[in-house]
């Protein structure tokens, strides 16, 4: 088990290093990072001075080493617009995004688990057909369209829920449903196919032949064994939506990290854009690492490889 953890840890650190390299290179993609930071009417002399001041005239390798050193200290640059450390700004908005993503996953699981189970237990039935069709559509519909439609229906026409912003608990409902629709559809499908796979296994047939009631078979054998791929996909989906809240946050004016990144792009605040990409990737890699460990714990066959 220890070698497993160690190997995964090393791979994770290498990956984080590559993420840092990519974020660093993002700024240099256009050839001159200083131009990204100055207003359009800056003179050549101002640009040259700024370049010297910020150290962009040094060799690339030197700049990168410096970048890594600063990242290790927690310095992800300073926001040009807010004139505050970029990392701090991202972390400030993190709680809003986590709140939204978690609510979305909870809604997704609450619907996906029962419907996945029903679909798998009665394949081909009306319930299964309906669930499958809704899943296909749910995975395909663009979230920003769903968000706007929900706003039109529930906020504008019915006045039941607020149209935007983060305030009372009711304001979480529409954005969470919008964000949670894709995970809901995906998880229902994954759960259904995972359950169907397990239901055909020999040990399930044996359990039923032994005379166990269907419910006991389900709880004792089937659900546990089909949980592994579902938990993995659920974790990965959570990581994905954490980084993908840009659209939903924009539609609902939700004050999270996604919207922060968007505003940074509009304001040509490149250090802030870089910081958001880095933090989002960092969180995703962290979640993946935790999932790897959990997967290793849940499925002994993995750690012994």
């Amino acid at each position, binding site marked *: 088990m220890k070698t497993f953890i160690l190997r995964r840890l090393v791979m994770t650190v290498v990956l984080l290093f590559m*993420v840092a390299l990519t974020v660093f290179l*993002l700024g240099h993609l256009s050839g001159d990072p200083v131009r990204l930071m100055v207003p359009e009417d800056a003179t050549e002399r101002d640009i040259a001075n700024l370049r010297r001041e910020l150290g962009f005239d040094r060799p690339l390798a030197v700049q990168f080493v410096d970048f890594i050193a600063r990242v290790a200290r927690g310095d992800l640059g300073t926001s040009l617009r807010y004139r505050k450390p970029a990392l701090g700004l991202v972390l400030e908005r993190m709680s809003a995004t986590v709140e939204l993503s978690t609510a979305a996953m909870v809604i997704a699981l609450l619907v996906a688990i029962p419907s996945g189970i029903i679909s798998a237990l009665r394949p081909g039935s009306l319930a299964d057909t309906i669930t499958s069709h809704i899943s*296909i559509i749910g995975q395909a519909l663009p979230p920003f369209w769903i968000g*706007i439609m929900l*706003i039109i229906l529930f906020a504008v026409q019915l006045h039941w829920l607020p149209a935007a912003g983060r305030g009372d608990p009711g304001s979480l409902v529409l954005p969470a449903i919008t964000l949670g629709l894709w995970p809901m559809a995906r998880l229902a499908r994954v759960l259904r196919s995972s359950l169907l796979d397990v239901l055909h296994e020999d040990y399930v047939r044996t359990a039923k032949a032994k005379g166990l009631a269907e419910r006991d078979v389900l709880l004792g054998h089937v659900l546990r064994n089909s949980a592994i791929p579902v938990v993995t996909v659920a974790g990965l989906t959570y990581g994905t939506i954490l980084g993908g809240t840009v*659209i939903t946050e924009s539609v609902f004016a939700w004050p999270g990290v996604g919207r922060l990144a968007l505003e940074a*792009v509009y304001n040509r605040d490149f250090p802030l854009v870089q910081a958001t990409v880095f933090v989002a990737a960092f969180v*995703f*890699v962290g979640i993946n690492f935790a999932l790897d460990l959990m997967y290793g714990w849940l499925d002994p066959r993995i750690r012994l490889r």
Partner: protein
Amino acid sequence: MPGAAGAGLRASSLRRRRAWGLFRRPQAVLGLAALTLVIVIAIGASFIAPHDPYVQSLDERLRPPFWSGGNLAHPLGTDQLGRDILSRLIYGARISMAVGLAAVLISGSLGVAAGVTAGFYGGLVDEGLMRLVDLRLALPFILLVIAVIAVFGPSLLNLIVILGLTGWAPYARVVRAEVLSIRERELVTAARALGASDGRLMIRHILPNTLASAIVIGSLELAQMIVTESALSFLGLGVQPPTPSWGSMLGEGRDYLLTSWWLATFPGLAIALTAVAINLVGDWLRDLLDPRLQL
């Protein structure tokens, strides 16, 4: 190699039989019909559209659809600058399809090439590619795309290039796995024994066998690309005005939701229906060509 050839023949006639099963799946037929309609509209936009999508008209501003108080000159109404919505929807189909197909072709070519190379050579090349895939998947797609747009500025061409260069990972992963199994097959050993070079092996023997999976992934990615272009245009970071894009129409219509609902509803429906149609066709293609693919 009679066995391999025989298996190939049997597989393709099986596929043909399963293809006709299409008609037993109404949703796939619907999807295919809708998609064909969108493509025809996109190609024939200049003939089909009743008006020029760029022409503004200050006295025709914000006219409702014809069933809601408007007239048949502008069947789906007009927008805030008096431009005909139906015509803009039609030309928008062209933009969506063009961006989607171009991005899929670029990313698909890159991904398949990478996957075949990695799967074929194995070892360090393979390890390197897998780490690159991990890296690409660790960076959140939409954030990555808007970060690159922040560097190069928003434009139609930039969008196609960016989407094309960032979408290669799904193809690479799946194709590589396929190549790993194809590599061991008799036909490869035989071709090698006959003196085929690496390049010839990869292009003539291995590549054709990976195309089925690549097409399935490509069809699902097409929907993803079209939705992403719409989303970025919605945010003002994609196709720039006045070029008609469903996404930017939706974005502009957002300010008029309370009063002129038709500005946002029709482009939104267009995006949603196109995305669903492509997904239905993609699902059917997957069941037909490679049911093992778990996407």
